[in-house]
């Protein structure tokens, strides 16, 4: 299937609002931070992706990213190696809009999930900071309790 698999986000850059960029970089190892306990995310895109998931989980409304000054963190080609991420983003788009046809409009999908990321980023940053331990433990415990709330 690999040869036929296609990544609709291939040509689209992933952006975050400028105000969050420092935090995204600070908590990611690709931001140049070696101490895992302080910077739990392997890559900036993992931070961004978790923000999307958290926002969707909490059923937050996507923000309108076009109203923000943004900064690129990476281009969409990154998903070329992870088909499940592409599928997940597409399902989120379908779930949020209720419209299956949205899958043919990559930019619209990206605008939607990026809007979710903007809504989710402050939540994840809060998770990292809230607690007495290092960010990795604070975040782990927050995700743990979020997963246990089955009702969402």
């Amino acid at each position: 299937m690999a040869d036929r698999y296609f990544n609709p986000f291939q040509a689209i850059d992933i952006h975050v609002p400028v105000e969050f960029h420092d935090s995204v970089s600070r908590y990611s190892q690709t931001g140049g931070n070696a101490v895992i306990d302080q910077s739990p995310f392997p890559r900036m895109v993992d931070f961004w992706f978790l923000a999307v998931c958290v926002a969707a989980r909490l059923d937050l409304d996507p923000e309108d990213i076009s109203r923000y000054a943004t900064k690129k963190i990476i281009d969409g080609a990154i998903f070329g190696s992870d088909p499940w991420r592409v599928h997940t983003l597409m399902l989120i788009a379908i779930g949020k809009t209720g419209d299956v046809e949205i899958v043919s409009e990559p930019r619209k999908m990206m605008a939607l999930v990026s809007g979710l990321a903007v809504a989710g980023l402050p939540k994840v940053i809060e998770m990292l900071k809230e607690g007495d331990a290092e960010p990795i433990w604070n975040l782990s415990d927050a995700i743990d309790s979020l997963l246990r709330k089955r009702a969402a």
Partner: protein
Amino acid sequence: MKLLCAEFQNFRLLRDLELRFSVDPHKKLTVIRAANESGKTTILHALQWALYGDAALPGKGDGFRLHPIDWSAPDGKRVPITAMVEFELTTYRQIGGELREARRRYRIVRAAFEEVDATARRTASTMRLFALNDSGASPIESPEAFVNDELPPELREVFFTDGDRALSFIEADVAQSTKRERVQRAIRSLLGLGVIEQAMKHVQKAAADVNRKAKQVGANAELRNIASRLEEIDKESGKFEAALADAKQQFAAFDEKVEETDRKISAALQKGDKEKLRKDLEHAKREIKQLDDQLAAANKEHSALFRNREVATELLAPVLRRAYDKLEELHDQGKIPNTTIPVLQNRLTAEICICGEPLVPGEPDCDERRAHIQKLIDDSLRADEIQEIITDLYYGAKPLPTDGNSWLDEYKKIVERRDGLKALRDDGGRKFRALEIELDALPDTDVQGLREARRQYKEQRDRHLSKSSSIETQLLSLRREREGLNVEFERLLREQKKGARILAELEVTQDVSRVLQSAYDRITKEELRKVSDLMNRIFLEMIGADPEQGAIIRRAEISAEFDIKVHGPNDRTLNPDRDLNGASRRALTLAFILALTKVSEVEAPNVIDTPLGMTSGYVKRSLLRTAIRESAQLILFLTHDEIAGCEEIIDDAAGAICTLTNPTHYPKMLLNDPGSAERKVLRCSCTHRNDCPQCQRRTDSDIRPEMAS
């Protein structure tokens, strides 16, 4: 004599130290609180150097460096070393039938310069003595003689004692003759028997003169021959006696070295094997490295929890389920083909259909079936873009909606793994630090080298022993020959005209000699008895409260042969090493020292390092109390451990207390950074009851974390 104060500059660890001692008759005790390696032994040396010069230093000061070992060159290449001691003398004078007490104060200053290089060459020290009075200080002539009168150098060991070394008066690992000689020397010099010894030498010389006269008395050739021979014998005997004394002294010196080396060897062995510790340390280091690697891997796995699929799909479970339901709906409506191109393509390549029918090209029916499948593929390829994406998504995203809990399970495992590794790592770290401390505490001893040194010392010692016994034999035969010749000599003299007068002179010298000898023996015997009795009383009082020892010890004495002996029930002689515990051995030597000082009626200080080591509880307190009572001035160097349990006694008896600190003990034993790593003893006025930032120490649990096993 009582010590008032002392000041030292650049004397080894004592770069600049001042000490005050109590002279209050109601507060006779001075306590200098100091941990080991905080300059106690150095102060003992410095005090003795001030009073007696290089002769009082180890090895008579030969090769014994005095300047601080970390002296830095910019401070000068010649180090000025000074030691100052002020003391008080009480004299009694009969004035108009009344005994008047007079106190005078004196100051001794000794100074020397030492080169800062490997040779550590030192100028001969100069010593000056001043009498202190209201108008100032007036110098006193021949200060050495003055000090020798007030604190006889033979008694250095009695006035300045190291609790451990003092045991050498009784310890079994020194030769009997060495102990005997030490006790004898101490007693004789304290009792002033030196004067009688001098007189006896005088009389001997007078007898020799008589001999010479006899030679000139007449023409009798035989008489002249005998007189010459007697003269020769006396000369020879004198030489032999000097050689014997020298051999005995050498024997004692080497015996002491053998014993000292033994102590070093057993201390080194007791503390453990350095090589083994090093290996253990290496092993601990490797273990820590492995744990660190495992911890790093566990951290990476922890981090991977935030990029793995489960975190997304399990967080998104409700969202994904809803969206996928929509795709299922389309599929049920037939809007998503059941097959996909890759699946069909695979079938064609595999030449077998999903239903099991063969799809071999060229075979009957098969070509037809292959054509049908190829048509399905072509239809799919023709489907519009949306259809294609949705189909792809429908099949690709099928596994994404989930009810699993695998993220929580994985997280739990990682927490356990990290916690477990962390605990192991902490243990490993503690173990490593404990080993490091243990290794640091080890003296850099080369046990092999010590054994070799011991062998050589022992060889030397034994050589001097056999030398002295051969000299003794020669002396004995000379003495016999002399006796025989003497009988003949007197007979021949009687036959001479002038012989009677010479004979009378000879008899007089012999009588005087006998009188002196018996006085010498009597004083020795009587005073010995006094010292012995007082020692016994003090000793029994010190250990009286120890039920364990009380049951086996009856009395202690100094025998006529100058052996310190302890007796048990039925007058059985006990072996101090085997039958006495550490506290009793210490009590016995302290009792001897105190008794000796007291019987001599010399008012003198007792400066003792580590007097209470190896003692505890009631015995420790009784030992301290008795020592305070029996001494004229008691200056004790005590460790924190020795002080423990004796605080109230010190409250009552101490007129001066201070604390010494070695800043290089930071951070291992000291709590606060002294701000300087210079090797230098610092003093603070903290007492046995308090401490300050300078002297505050870590508790045992801080410095010796439990070994994880």
